C-alpha cells in the first residue's frame, strides 16, 4: 500500500453506525430533558418596594403591640367589679360562697369586718328567735 492517495478513488467513510431509530427517539428523549419554563425569580433585595414592605411590617407590629397592651389593661377588672359581678350577675349564692371559704379566709374576714355596737343591737332586736333562746 505504498501508493495510497486519500483523494483518489472512493471516499472512505468513518464507518460509524447508530442503533435503529436512534434519531427518531433522540428528539423525544431530548425534549423531555429540556428545562421547563420557570417563573422568573426576582430576588427580594432587587424588589423596589422592599423598604415599603419593611415599613408596613413595622407598623403592623407596633399596632398589634399597642392593641395587646391596651386590651390587657382593660381586661384586668378591679375588686369592686368582681364583687358586683358576683353579687348581681353570677349565679352564686351565699351558700356557694361559704363553701369556698377556708379557715384562713374566715379569720381574715373577722379581722377586716368592723361591726359597730349599734349594728349588733339592731340585728339582735330584729332577730326574735335568738332572743327567745
Amino acid at each position, binding site marked *: 500500500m505504498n501508493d495510497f492517495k486519500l483523494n483518489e478513488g472512493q471516499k472512505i467513510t468513518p464507518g460509524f453506525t*447508530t442503533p435503529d431509530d436512534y*434519531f427518531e427517539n*433522540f*428528539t423525544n*428523549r431530548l425534549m423531555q430533558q429540556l428545562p421547563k419554563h420557570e417563573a422568573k425569580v426576582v430576588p427580594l433585595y432587587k424588589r423596589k418596594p422592599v423598604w415599603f414592605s419593611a415599613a408596613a411590617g413595622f407598623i403592623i407590629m407596633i399596632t398589634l403591640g399597642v392593641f395587646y397592651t391596651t386590651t390587657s389593661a382593660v381586661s384586668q377588672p378591679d375588686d369592686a367589679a368582681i364583687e358586683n359581678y358576683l353579687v348581681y350577675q353570677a349565679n352564686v349564692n351565699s351558700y356557694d360562697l361559704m363553701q369556698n371559704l377556708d379557715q384562713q379566709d374566715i379569720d381574715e374576714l373577722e379581722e377586716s369586718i368592723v361591726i359597730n355596737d349599734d349594728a349588733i343591737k339592731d340585728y339582735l332586736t330584729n332577730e326574735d328567735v335568738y332572743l327567745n333562746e
Partner: protein
Amino acid sequence: MQDEKAFIAQLLNPKTQDTAFRQLVAQYSRPLYSHIRTIVLDHDDTDDVLQNTFIKVFRNLAGFKGESKLFSWIYRIATNEALTFISLKARKNYISNEEVNERALNSLPADDYFEGDALQLKLQQAVASLPQKQQLVFKMKYFEDLKYEDISEILGTSVGALKASYHHAVKKIEDYINNH
C-alpha cells in the same frame, strides 16, 4: 438570513419554542452526531455530548446575538462540548487527552456501532496520530464535507490556515497508511 432571524424569533417565543426547537433538533441531530462521533468515537459518549450540546443551545438561545450563523454557532458549541468531554474524561482517569483518544480507538473494533473495515480503522488510527487542531480540520473537511468558510467560522481560524492544515493532515495520513 431573514429566514434565520424569523426562525430564531420562533425559538425564543414561548408559544412557538417547542415546535421550533423540535425542528432544529431534527435538522441538526444527524450532522452534529457525525461531527461529535468523529471526535469522541464511542456511540454512548457521542449520545451524551449530543444531548448536552442541544441543552446548551436551548439555554443560550436568548444570548445568541446573530453575529455568526446559527449553524456555525451550534457547531462551535458541539465542538467545545466534545473537546471538554474528552478533557473531563482524561482528568477523571488521570490520563492525557491523547490517551483517552487512544483508548477509544482501541475499543472501536469491538464497538457494536462501528462497522468499518481494516482500511477505515487504519484511517481512524492515522487521524488520531495528528495534532488536535489538524484532526479537527481533517474530520470536518474530509468526513463531514464542510466548506472552508464554515470551518473557519466554527474554529475561528482563517481559510488560508485551514487549507494549509488540511493539506498537511492529508500528507501525514497518507504516509501513516503507507507505512503501517
